[in-house]
């Protein structure tokens, strides 16, 4: 009896979940006979089984529910939201009793007369609203089966007789208990409605053919035995890994073949066992329609839940763990995400809010998306709330993008229920949702578009038991990093292509034109920081949500399938680890939790902004300039300002092509001219060719060098050199005379019109030692012209806008010459010059215009009195000579 009862409990729980979902569906489509039949059958089965097991209270409840459902099925009554609610209530009551049964193995005391009498009343049609709607329901709801009403009386009789279920019915019910068996259904339906028209049967046939029945023999297996099996397979995988490692070391051929077989069998076994644990995600979604219905009703909204990809399978352990977060989020979408119907209509949307739930596989994980078409997150409210409770500072808030603000709903503290509900934002317990998802190695991110809705994207591993991980080593030992989060590996060296730089104590790596925040895994794990040698290492580039960062490690071993073992309770508080595992060599390593690391990155998020700021500062502040040192043709080191270099590349010499006497290489889908810094085109033939890439306005030029040596930051004293056009001058760097190359020269070799293109943005220079004020909004040009003018002996202040110029004016700074761009986004150079000419203090300062325009335009500008002279941007020689000339004139005049 015990076994029977527990089987009954398990089955009934499952059935009730289906009933819940089906009832909601039925409520929306009251003419969907198949859904109704399914519900009826399930309830009927429950009732029948209860009678068989001697559970009178459950039986009575189920019977009353069944009676009402029977009325619907026979079209004697039309379902209304109220009566459906009533049935749902009775289902809830059944669930309560079942819970009690599970604990005590007997039904609780008491009765359910109240709800039963309501059900009976409803089925007799005496509920007021039911009664009101009952008499003439046929026209709209039963268009093609009106004749079925003929069966009304028979069925009424039948339904009213208690305990009328025939033995055949009961047996049928048991047979049908395992799933939607439409044939049984048909039999049952035939018996129940004797006059059922053939037409309807035909309809069923049609439906059946579109949904072929799968008759698969199944065995109910205790979940624990599956878990045990999985644990054993995990051990097997471990042992195999160990064997593999041993054999690799001994290189014994005898073992290789059997080991290979063992290996493949193990893999298959692992997959097979994993499959037994897989369940469609739809199982976790079953209760959602009911939840949506109830919460929608509670807030008086119309909400439609659409589900896609229910069949997507994942490990049952994972499934159990995401159930609650999902429920929470769907409820949130209902409560907060979707606007009330009238507002929706006013906004031009359909009245019923849509919640789209979808799931699909992507790599080794499953992606679940929860999207609503509501109003989107209230950005400003979240921002002010976050500032108010100290999650972020005002300054931080100003620097954050909307998306970053939205993500604050995942922050703890922002989401205490009362607080967030009062700002009517979403986010009740979103931090809990996030931590739940992170606990199972998943990530969550969101995207919200104002007025169009919010989409949450959850990415979780298919299984928790075995994951693929990258084994790395740091000063603190070996660690495993789950592959799920790893995007790529970058090898860094002190001087090579990828080099880690430091910006106000934060490490960054230039990777494809972007700065990537870098964390040193050794330091995260509590090792003291090493000042000097971050020489060679690997950066593991990871993404967590939309956060992207690099983790610096000393070395990288291979990828291993690892069996995740939970950490001891005593270690759980260390949030950078998610578990531990045994490697092939038998040693234990900790598994790094990408989410834990991401939290450490935290404030580094704004690194791009701060970096650009500090770069600007470095330029304006006359102190140090970072120079990239390299060799190119000759024994003397050469250097260019690092700030001009976009990227360092190593290019396969095979890929260097020659066209029309010029060297080209395919670089990011375009042809990039290559110029050798040593003058003669002595490109490497076998070894990778180191190349400095300069990019501006989407165009790149590669400057090939022999060897990249170092990066130094020193105060630059450039001495003007001979007349070689490619050299600005020489400077002492790292104690050695170094030629500072004129990058502009090489750029124009690559693209003759380089500076015309760059001309949209310029800067002015002023020399004052002649002191030069350089105003140009283009950082590239500023960076290039400034060392050039410095080399020519001027003291240069480079700024990016005319407003900064006025600030300097007000501050009482004096200049000997002002060099200004003509075209700037926030001002016009000519207007600027005109205003300057009327300025009390600066009116006498000569003004030089920089322009990318053609000669005749230049003459036009020159003809105005605003500027003393005008120079083409690309013509650096005449820039210096003109400045000299103008200043000379000035000096003579004075």
């Amino acid at each position, binding site marked *: 009896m015990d076994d029977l009862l527990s089987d009954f409990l398990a089955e009934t729980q499952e059935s009730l979940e289906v009933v819940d979902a089906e009832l909601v569906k039925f409520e929306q489509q009251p003419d969907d006979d198949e859904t109704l039949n399914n519900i009826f059958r399930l309830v009927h089965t429950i009732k029948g089984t209860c009678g068989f097991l001697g559970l009178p209270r459950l039986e009575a409840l189920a019977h009353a529910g069944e009676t009402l459902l029977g009325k619907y099925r026979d079209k004697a009554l039309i379902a209304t939201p109220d009566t459906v609610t009533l049935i749902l209530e009775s289902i809830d009551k059944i669930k309560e009793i079942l819970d009690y049964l599970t604990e005590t193995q007997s039904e609780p005391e008491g009765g359910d007369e109240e709800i039963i009498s309501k059900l009976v009343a409803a089925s007799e049609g005496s509920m007021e609203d039911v009664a009101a709607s009952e008499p003439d329901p046929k026209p709209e709801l039963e268009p093609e089966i009106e004749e079925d009403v003929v069966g009304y009386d028979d069925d009424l009789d039948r339904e009213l007789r208690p305990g009328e279920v025939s033995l055949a019915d009961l047996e049928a019910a048991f047979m049908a208990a395992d799933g939607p068996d439409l044939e049984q259904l048909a039999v049952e339906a035939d018996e129940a409605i004797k006059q059922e028209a053939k037409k309807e049967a035909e309809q069923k046939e049609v439906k059946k053919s579109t949904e072929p029945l799968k008759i698969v023999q199944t065995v109910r297996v205790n979940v624990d035995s599956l878990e045990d099996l999985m644990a054993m397979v995990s051990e097997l995988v471990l042992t195999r890994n160990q064997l593999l490692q041993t054999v690799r070391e001994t290189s014994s051929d005898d073992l290789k073949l059997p080991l290979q077989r063992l290996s493949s069998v193990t893999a298959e076994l692992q997959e097979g066992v994993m499959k037994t644990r897989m369940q469609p995600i739809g199982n976790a979604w079953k209760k959602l329609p009911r939840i949506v219905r109830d919460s929608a009703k509670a807030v008086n909204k119309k909400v439609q839940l659409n589900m896609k990809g229910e069949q997507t399978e994942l490990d049952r352990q994972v499934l159990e763990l995401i159930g609650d977060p999902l429920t929470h989020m769907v409820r949130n979408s209902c409560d907060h995400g979707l606007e009330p119907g009238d507002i929706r209509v006013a906004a031009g949307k359909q009245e019923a809010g849509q919640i789209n739930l979808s799931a699909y596989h992507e790599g080794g994980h499953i992606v679940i998306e929860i999207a609503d078409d509501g109003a989107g997150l209230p950005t400003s409210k979240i921002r002010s709330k976050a500032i108010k409770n100290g999650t972020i500072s005002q300054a931080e808030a100003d620097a954050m993008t909307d998306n970053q603000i939205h993500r604050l709903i995942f922050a703890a503290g922002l989401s205490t229920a009362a607080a967030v509900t009062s700002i009517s934002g979403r986010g009740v317990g979103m931090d809990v949702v996030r931590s739940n998802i992170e606990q199972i190695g998943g990530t969550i991110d969101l995207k919200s578009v104002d007025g169009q809705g919010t989409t949450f994207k959850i990415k979780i591993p298919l299984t928790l038991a075995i994951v693929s991980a990258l084994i790395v080593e740091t000063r*603190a030992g070996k660690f495993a990093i789950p592959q799920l989060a790893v995007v790529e590996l970058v090898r860094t060296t002190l001087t090579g292509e990828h080099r880690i730089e430091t910006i106000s104590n934060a490490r960054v790596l230039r990777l494809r034109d972007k700065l990537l925040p870098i964390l040193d895994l050794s330091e995260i794990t*509590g090792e003291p920081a090493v000042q000097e040698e971050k020489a060679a290492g690997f950066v593991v580039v990871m993404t967590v949500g939309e956060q992207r960062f690099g983790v610096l490690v000393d070395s990288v071993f291979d990828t291993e399938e690892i069996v995740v073992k939970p950490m*001891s*309770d*005593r*270690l759980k508080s*260390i949030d950078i680890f998610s578990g531990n595992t*045994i490697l092939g060599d038998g040693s*234990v390593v*900790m598994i790094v939790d990408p989410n834990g690391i991401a939290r450490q990155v935290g404030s580094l998020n704004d690194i791009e902004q701060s970096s650009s700021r500090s770069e600007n500062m470095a330029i304006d502040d006359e102190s140090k300039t970072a120079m990239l040192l390299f060799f190119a043709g000759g024994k003397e080191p050469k250097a260019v300002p690092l700030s001009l270099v976009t990227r360092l590349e190593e290019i396969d010499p095979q890929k260097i092509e020659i066209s029309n006497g010029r060297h080209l290489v395919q670089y990011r889908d375009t042809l990039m001219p290559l110029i050798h810094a040593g003058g003669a085109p002595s490109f490497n033939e076998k070894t990778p060719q180191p190349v400095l890439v300069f990019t501006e306005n989407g165009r790149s030029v590669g400057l090939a060098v022999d060897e990249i040596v170092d990066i130094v930051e020193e105060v630059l004293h450039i001495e003007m050199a001979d007349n070689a056009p490619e050299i600005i001058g020489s400077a002492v760097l790292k104690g050695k005379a170094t030629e500072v190359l004129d990058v502009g020269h090489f750029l124009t070799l690559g693209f003759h019109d380089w500076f015309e293109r760059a001309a949209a943005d310029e800067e002015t220079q002023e020399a004052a030692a002649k002191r030069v004020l350089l105003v140009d909004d283009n950082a590239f040009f500023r960076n290039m012209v400034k060392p050039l003018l410095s080399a020519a002996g001027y003291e240069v202040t480079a700024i990016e806008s005319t407003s900064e110029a006025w600030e300097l004016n007000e501050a009482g700074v004096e200049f000997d010459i002002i060099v200004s761009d003509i075209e700037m986004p926030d001002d016009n150079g000519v207007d600027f010059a005109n205003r300057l000419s009327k300025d009390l203090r600066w009116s006498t300062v000569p003004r030089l215009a920089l322009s990318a325009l053609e000669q005749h335009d230049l003459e036009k500008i020159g003809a105005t009195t605003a500027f003393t002279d005008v120079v083409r941007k690309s013509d650096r020689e005449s820039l210096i000579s003109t400045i000299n000339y103008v200043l000379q004139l000035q000096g003579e005049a004075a």
Partner: protein
Amino acid sequence: MSEQIAATGKKVSDKDQINEFVTFFIEKQIFGIPVSDIHEVFHPQAITRVPLAPPEIRGVLNLRGRIVTAIEVRVKLNLPALEQGQQSLMAIGVEINGESYGLIIDRVGDVLQLPVSKSEVVPMNMDPVWQKFTSEIYRLEDQLLIILDIKRLLDFETKSEMAA
């Protein structure tokens, strides 16, 4: 299983039974742990240090496919940890809440069968740190045997006390 015994330790003594303890030494002091709490005695090898872990956690190690957390009993008792490599380590394997722990000790002694009548309550003036982990004391012929409560030793029952 171990839970049960830990919880009913007192009851057993009331019935005047013989209790069995595995004894071990730290410096000169002899300690005991009920046999029923102990899974095995082993030489821990290849301990992986766990960064950021509390000081008494020496690391984790692989014991026949299980991951065992190695705890320095010395550190818990406010004694300096043994220098690594000084001698091969000894550990007592216990299991709590399904997790395996290895208690690193100086050396293992005999298994003693002691009548409950020789049990004493913990003296009030004992070092409070030690007192916290001691469940009872047995009078041996030439010394006193301190019976450790491994649950408390491993912080599974002391959190609230410590908070208070």
